[in-house]
């Protein structure tokens, strides 16, 4: 009953298989080549995972026995970290909003100025947060002020880019309506663009705040205050029990903040 019992058909010649596009093989070859080069350069090997896993033992033992009290002993460092993150996100995101409006052709018709702003944003974004940390520690000394300033730069980089892209993609209808009613540029931005870009902007802002908590750990390493400084000290003392406690606490805080910002996002948007 199956189709193979069908009457014999004329022989067919399948079409010639077209030459595959050169892009895929060339791309794959490039990926392999870069991987080999990079692998050799950083002396990639997984053997320590087998041979030296024992060296991780004291670390693991320390981590399994967290010194819970330590979390509270450094409570001021926690407060400092959170304060740094709050200030840096509020200030950074506010500046980012202005920059985003200046960097989008939708809201800034002066092309050379707009292009310059876009380039400035790309440059700001290209430097990693530690670079800013080092610069500001040098400029204003060790402490949380350097951390705040560094995170502000970092936040501008992230938030301004995402917001500018949202502005680029807003629905042109309301803008045309505003133009048709003779609105000035500033009004058009305020009443036709901002309402459309706001949901995106708010969620990027909350997102940046979450990033800040993690980033401030890094910045503490270069002397920019907060819990990162504590982590560095404990690490140099090899007190993995204390480190473990801090990391677990950090984990809980990030999770709680994640939940909080999800809640806030739902409220706001």
């Amino acid at each position, binding site marked *: 009953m199956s189709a193979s019992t069908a009457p014999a058909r004329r022989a067919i010649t399948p079409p010639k298989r077209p030459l595959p596009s050169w892009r895929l093989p060339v791309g794959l070859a490039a990926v392999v080549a*870069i*991987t080999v080069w*990079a*692998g050799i*350069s*950083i*002396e*990639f*090997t997984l053997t*320590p995972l087998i041979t030296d*896993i024992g*060296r*991780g033992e*004291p*670390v693991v033992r320390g981590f399994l026995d967290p010194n819970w009290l330590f979390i509270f002993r450094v409570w*001021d460092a926690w407060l400092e970290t*959170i*304060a*740094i993150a*709050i*200030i840096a996100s*509020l200030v950074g995101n506010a500046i980012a909003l202005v920059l985003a409006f200046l960097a989008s052709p939708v809201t800034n018709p002066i092309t050379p100025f707009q292009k310059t702003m876009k380039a400035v944003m*790309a*440059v700001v974004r*290209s*430097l*990693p947060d*530690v*670079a800013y940390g*080092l*610069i*500001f*520690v040098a*400029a*204003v*000394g060790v*402490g*949380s*002020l350097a951390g*705040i*300033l560094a995170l502000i730069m970092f936040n501008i980089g992230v938030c301004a880019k*995402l917001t500018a*892209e949202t502005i680029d*993609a807003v629905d042109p209808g309301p803008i045309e309506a505003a133009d048709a009613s003779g609105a000035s540029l500033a009004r058009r931005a305020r009443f036709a663009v901002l309402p459309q870009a706001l949901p995106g902007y708010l969620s*990027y802002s909350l997102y940046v705040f979450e*990033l800040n908590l993690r*980033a401030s*750990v*890094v910045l503490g*390493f*270069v002397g920019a*205050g907060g819990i990162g400084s504590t982590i560095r000290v404990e*690490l140099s003392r090899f007190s*993995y029990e204390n*480190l473990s406690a801090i*990391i677990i606490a*950090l*984990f809980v805080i990030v*999770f709680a903040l*994640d939940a909080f910002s999800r809640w806030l996002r739902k409220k706001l948007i």
Partner: protein
Amino acid sequence: MSTITPPRAPGRSFTPPPAPSKLRETIGMLAVTLVFALAVVLADANWPRLLEAPAVLGEFVVLMTQGVLQNPLEAPTNEYWTRSLELMIESLHIAWIGTLIGAILSFPLGFLAARNVAPPGVVVVVRQILNAIRAIPEIIFAIAIMLPIFGLGPLAGALAIGVNSVGTLGKLTSEAIESIDTGPVESARASGASRWQVIRYAMVPQVMPEVVAYWLYRFEINIRASAILGVLGAGGIGSILSALFNIRAWDRIGVTLAVIIIVTLIIDAISGSIRHRIIHGAAPRGVRRRRALTPEPPPV
């Protein structure tokens, strides 16, 4: 709620409906201001130094610019440029290997975290693991797990970045899988394909472009992350950066930052155009293409 306005006679003056209450916004603004003020106090920052900062920073910029503007072919500036470039390339290598590890590990995990592939129990567990990884900064992976076993160096950095990338990449991959067109899945299943065959022929081809775009995006982020780990001693541009700041060699710092900026901008541009090509297809040639703008994933 209970007031019903009687129909208005034409020409009579009318009262506009009461504006919606601004109370919520006012309270929100007040709360934000309060939290901000509290943070300013609690941050324990040396605020007066903020006033000196512009002058000091201006001085730094001048010194750095002088370094950048020196003839790059003469000693010792040529040395600065080549050394920075070498280290930046090492950073790229760290980021590349890290991204590759992240991509390889996150791909299967993404499927296990997708509701339309894995059973609910597995999905919940894998998602929590991915969330946990996302919550931990890579620097902690590096110091806590990789350094003791692999020692101080680029390899530890690459592994830390790799493990850390798994969190975001796995999440984004699973979201891409969950949003595929279910039609091809159903037709493959209807023709007697096994579970693996359905994944291979109906799901993977649909998600691959998006997933590769995520990998590239993560590579851009990992370049910055590798600089961070360098400060710890995990190789790459970060290691020289902190050393230079210790000795305040501003001209050399200027050169190093310039290398970071230039290389990062170039890589971002290349990666961005590849991503665009993968998602939106080749340049227009009258062929139907996907119109919708694919939003960038969040830069986790």
